[in-house]
């Protein structure tokens, strides 16, 4: 790990900052972005060898990391396309006369149990289990059919032979194994695989359902916050996740900035929470937008299971699941936007749902911002960095230069003023390799991969 002396800070102490270099970028370069190509979810699998992306056109693209060769042990593997398939198609709900978008909202991998890989992908209404398997052998010499597959006339078969396996070019096949449909009236925002590897949950705006991976015609409703009178609806579910180790525990976040932890052992319907996490509001900063910016857009357990992280519009908060009354850490992502909330409300940017992620050791968290900026926060230091995913810094092994947003009147060189930020370039989806310092950052229709600088 490169040791960097921070300007004006402690020169060569124990602190060593991760320097990121460009690895790869995937996606079209041209300015006109097709709506269908916009990446809507990014997820590494459990080993980090596979990286899946979903887009608004309903497609899933899986990248595989190239194996390091013995001759170049220090070169890190690149990610190349492994499989591409159409997961969801647009549908039409005839009863409501409404289209169901094919946009992939979430992808979650299943832990690998045999040679094939499995993942769950979901759009607004339907979850699908996909099997991705390799085929590198082909059987030849069938008795009942020709080489081109046509059936042979039985009387033409004069002798019997045993088909032999011949090698062929590697083919990666994706096939839908299960379709979990018709269980959600509202839009699915989250799926989460349980640590028992047999069940998973799916959450929409008002309900959370529990599924068994083998059973598609039935799911159990475990949370229902739909009021009897919809006029009284003031709060919706925004995200949900299972605890990484305790298969009976899950959390869900709301549009009012609260998180509820539920234990499925206590009741079949987990409307009563076991723990309720809410930070008291600061009355001095109250405005008409307070509720909107407190709405949680993502919740993620740490790998250890001891902490969870929530992302609201302006900040990321780390909570100790044993302490409900306030988070243990709060990081401001782009506080300079607080005075611009009205404009951001007007252009709807205030409703953008940013995600967040942990690194493998839970020491650093990452989340996106505008202008293709993304931020990393090292929890122990604390130290934060702002980086940009741009084509300009996309030279192989180019070190990413930290960016800075100018909040005072005087703009220094290389700083960017708040007014010149591009709010159409938003980084909503990021992912961190489970074990190494490799990050995937989705910038509209491009996927950027960065890795830690190696000397």
């Amino acid at each position, binding site marked *: 790990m490169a040791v960097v002396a921070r300007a004006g800070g402690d020169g060569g102490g124990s602190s060593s900052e991760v320097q990121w270099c460009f690895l790869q970028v995937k996606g079209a370069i041209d300015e006109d972005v097709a709506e269908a190509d916009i990446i809507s979810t990014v997820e590494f699998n459990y080993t980090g060898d596979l990286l899946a992306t979903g887009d608004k056109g309903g497609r899933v693209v899986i990248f595989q990391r190239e194996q390091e060769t013995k001759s170049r042990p220090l070169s890190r593997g690149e990610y190349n396309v492994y499989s591409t398939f159409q997961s969801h198609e647009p549908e039409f709900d005839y009863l*409501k006369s*409404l*289209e*169901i*978008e094919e946009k992939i909202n979430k992808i979650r991998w299943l832990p690998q149990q045999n040679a094939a890989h499995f993942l769950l992908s979901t759009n*607004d209404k339907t979850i699908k289990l996909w099997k991705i398997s390799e085929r590198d052998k082909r059987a030849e010499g069938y008795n009942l059919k020709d080489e081109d597959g046509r059936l042979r006339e039985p009387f033409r078969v004069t002798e019997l032979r045993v088909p032999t396996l011949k090698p062929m070019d590697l083919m990666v096949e994706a096939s839908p194994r299960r379709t979990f449909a018709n269980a959600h*009236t*509202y*839009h699915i925002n989250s799926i989460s695989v349980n640590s028992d590897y047999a069940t998973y949950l799916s959450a929409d*705006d*008002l309900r959370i359902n529990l599924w068994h991976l083998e059973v598609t015609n039935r799911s159990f409703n475990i949370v229902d916050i739909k009021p*009897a*009178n*919809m*006029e009284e*609806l*003031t*709060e*919706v579910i*925004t995200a949900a996740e299972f605890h990484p180790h305790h298969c009976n525990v899950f959390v869900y976040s709301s*549009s009012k900035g609260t998180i509820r932890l539920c234990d499925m052992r206590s009741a079949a319907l987990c409307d009563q929470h076991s723990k309720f996490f809410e930070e008291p509001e600061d009355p*001095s*900063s*109250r*405005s*008409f*937008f307070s*509720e*909107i910016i407190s*709405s949680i857009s993502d919740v993620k357990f740490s790998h250890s299971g001891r902490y969870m992280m929530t992302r609201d519009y302006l900040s990321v908060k780390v909570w100790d699941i044993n302490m409900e009354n306030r988070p243990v850490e709060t990081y401001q992502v782009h506080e300079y936007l*607080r*005075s*611009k*909330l*009205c*404009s951001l*409300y*007007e*252009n*709807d940017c205030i*409703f953008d749902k940013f995600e967040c992620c942990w690194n493998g050791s839970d020491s650093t968290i990452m989340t996106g911002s505008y202008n293709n900026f993304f931020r990393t926060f090292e929890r122990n230091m604390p130290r934060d960095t702002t980086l940009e995913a741009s084509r300009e810094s996309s030279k192989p092994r180019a070190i990413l230069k930290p960016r800075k947003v100018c909040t*005072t009147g005087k703009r220094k060189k290389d700083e960017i003023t708040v*007014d*010149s930020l591009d*709010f*159409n370039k938003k980084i909503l989806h990021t992912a961190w390799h489970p074990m190494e310092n490799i990050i995937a950052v989705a910038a509209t229709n491009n996927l950027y991969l960065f890795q830690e600088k190696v000397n």
Partner: protein
Amino acid sequence: MGEEEGLHQTPFLDTMFVRGLKRKCFDGEEDIEGTLAGIKAIPSYNLQRQSLLDMSLVKLQLCHMLVEPNLCRSVLIANTVRQIQEEMTQDGTWQMINTQSTGQASLDRLVSTDILCRSSRDQAEGKHVPAYGTFNKDFENDQAQDSSDTMSTASAVQAPRNLQSSVWEMENPQENKGNFQKSLDQIFETLENKSPNSVEDLFSEVDNSYYDLDTMLTGMMSNTKMGHCDSLETFSSSTNTASNSNCKSDLNDLDHIVEILVES
């Protein structure tokens, strides 16, 4: 720095949007930079709050035609509207329309919004545009007026109703009778939960809700209550059977309310 702190402590909306609001409403163009420059005076808090309320109502009205809109976004905007209305009620700036001190009043306002959303969602896309044009004109008049707060409040609330009434006028009554009745059923639901069976009870309880019903039924823009009796009679005759038979299915129709929120 000090200015930013000041913005923190007082619930002032940030100033830049006021100038840009008109442009954005009409053009729909993004122009943050343009609005930032040249703002000299901070508009009054009441005017800013009013603009925010209007903007929120517009957001709720602009329904997607084909794809279900985001429920989370709709709920957050509706909560913002409710919050503004409650504050305006407490301030006493909402005096043009009779308001009860309970939350019923804000719910009724919300009803108007909901019905607006439903109606604009039901009509064809082609018809939607002229209606919005009407709304723009009224809005422009409001802004241009040298108006007191109460005036602008009233006209802002009128503006959605104007949209509503022009919507009703343009629609073919035959085609939309079903929707009409459904919307009215929802009005029943929100007005009184006591005895949905009795049409008379419903009407006896309301005062400002009368006003809502009135403008929606007859497309009247005036603030008078003159046409009440006429509209009542036509109203009760056409919907009597509907309301009685829909009593039980009202519970099922609650999902329509979801649709309203969803459509907004």
